[in-house]
């Protein structure tokens, strides 16, 4: 019967319907665990992190497994941790920022030189440094969003510009820790140590943790956060769906510039001095990207969680301190970190697979 009957009549009357449900055979803890892994992408790097701490703890004993050593890791990753938080935002929008480290170093130089060269009160010098970072972020964002240049190119160019400007402006001069301590201790505020038993926390470490938590909240529970994900996921669709892509990108790049300014302040706290040749300017970008990618954020944008990046930074920190404490020589440490980066992500991949 190839003629059309009035088959559509059947569906014209509405029946009572429920949403489909199925019996699932396996239940209980394992399944809940699987489900948790799926809905919370930061859980996998967290597991890798805990495993790494455990392994080094077993090898090195209480030397490593002490509050002192464990909080030392936090101190050693604080700069990378802050930069990784910034980098996460950009990578979530399917961008990449090669300039984060250099911007942080230049901001620290600005905070220092404005205080010492021009006599600006330290508090305002810090504010100016933060404003400067935000301004650089705005330039990056504008080039990416309005001129539609690839973020890689924009920030590669900016990296070189900022780094060179940093050397030129500072005349390669370090401001010594002793001088800062004597004349502008506020610049070192982030280095203030809080002792809790054997644990040593600095304001910088606390700032890093708070920053990560605030960003995690904003990404997950505000409209802005949803827009960041949407823009990274598929900018064309986001635009058609009514997201103001330009505004979202500008806000992200400017915020990232601001966070680089915070990283600058944290750097002064950690090293005491203001040094234009700080390595963060040269390798801070790769370190931050590494943390982000180990943490499970996709370089193609729109997928992953900022908590993951934080755990990613800690994973590298644990490996580095652990290997150093175990006395591996530098090239072997370097080599093993390479192996462990791959291994960490392999484990991650494997956990996802067996729980898929």
């Amino acid at each position: 019967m190839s003629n059309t009957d009035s088959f559509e009549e059947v569906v014209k009357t509405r029946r009572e319907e429920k949403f489909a449900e199925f019996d699932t055979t396996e239940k209980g803890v394992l399944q809940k665990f699987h489900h948790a892994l799926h809905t919370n992408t930061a859980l996998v790097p967290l597991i890798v992190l805990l495993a790494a701490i455990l392994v080094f703890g077993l090898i090195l004993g209480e030397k490593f497994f002490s509050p002192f050593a464990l909080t030392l890791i936090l101190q050693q990753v604080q700069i990378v941790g802050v930069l990784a938080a910034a980098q996460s935002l950009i990578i979530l929008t399917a961008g990449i920022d090669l300039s984060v480290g250099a911007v942080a170093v230049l901001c620290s130089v600005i905070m220092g030189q404005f205080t010492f060269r021009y006599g600006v009160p330290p508090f305002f010098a810090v504010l100016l440094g933060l404003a400067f970072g935000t301004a650089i972020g705005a330039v990056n964002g504008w080039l990416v969003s309005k001129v539609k240049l690839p973020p890689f190119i924009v920030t590669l160019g900016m990296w070189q510009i900022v780094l060179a400007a940093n050397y030129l402006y500072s005349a390669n001069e370090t401001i010594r820790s002793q001088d800062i301590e004597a004349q502008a201790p506020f610049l070192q505020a982030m280095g203030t140590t809080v002792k809790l038993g054997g644990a040593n926390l600095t304001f910088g470490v606390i700032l890093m943790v708070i920053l990560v938590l605030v960003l995690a909240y904003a990404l997950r529970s505000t409209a802005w956060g949803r827009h960041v994900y949407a823009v990274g996921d598929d900018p064309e669709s986001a635009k058609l769906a009514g997201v103001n892509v330009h505004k979202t990108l500008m806000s992200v790049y400017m915020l990232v510039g601001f966070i680089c300014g915070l990283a600058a302040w944290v750097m002064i706290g950690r090293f005491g001095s203001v040094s234009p040749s700080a390595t963060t300017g040269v390798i801070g970008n790769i370190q931050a990207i590494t943390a982000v990618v180990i943490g499970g954020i996709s370089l193609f944008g729109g997928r992953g969680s900022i908590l993951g990046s934080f755990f990613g930074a800690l994973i590298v920190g644990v490996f580095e301190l652990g290997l150093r404490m175990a006395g591996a020589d530098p090239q072997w440490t370097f080599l093993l970190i390479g192996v462990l980066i791959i291994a960490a992500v392999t484990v991650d991949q494997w956990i996802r697979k067996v729980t898929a």
Partner: protein
Amino acid sequence: MSDPILKARGLNKRYGKVTAIDNCDFDLMPGEILAVIGDNGAGKSTLIKALSGAVQPDSGKIWLDGQEVAFASPNDARANGIETVYQTLAMSPALSITDNMFMGRELRKPGLMGKLFRTLDKKAMEDFAREKLAELGLMTIQNINQAVETLSGGQRQGVAVARAAAFGSRVIILDEPTAALGVKESRRVLELILDVRSRGIPIILISHNMPHVFEVADRIHIHRLGKRAAVIRPSDFSMSDAVAIMTGAMEPPASMAA
């Protein structure tokens, strides 16, 4: 006869060697359901993209309610009350159904949390999404927090249609909204379209389904080779005539030629 709510004259859009719309005119009257039909590649989607700000025409003019407009982005058009379901659906694949439905107009929690911390009201948005999907008969969606990329083709389309219907205020444009839908779900969309019209909102409906078009449309814009070949009333012509005009098998009746 009143003035068109949305009107276009002499629209052109060329992509390199390819001509997508070719000196095309368009009129949508207040409160009507206007169907747009035409062969694949005739230029229907490009036309409505030009009307909704998703594409900038090379030349030609557009008027909304008598006022000349030039939308620079879909957001511009949306700000003017024009809501569109694009053929490509415009969803963020990795985000959930709820996130997609409320993209760009998220609900905040009432009280301090919403005002100060701008916290999203996930619960309210989920409930709303569930309800809209139920209205469309999409009862196979088991998990409202599923990422859109994991939905079936029809489920995805249903979400997009639900979004437009829920938020459109002045003009609703639907580009093949039932293409991937099942019998029941298509029927629900037709009912929805009629319901929207009864609220006084005019609708542009692109569709290849002739029975559906003839069932709901007040007027039919027949598109051919990038331009409007004719506008007919379903009461005056048969489906066969419409198809014949659309495919070029029949010349458009002189009086109806646009």
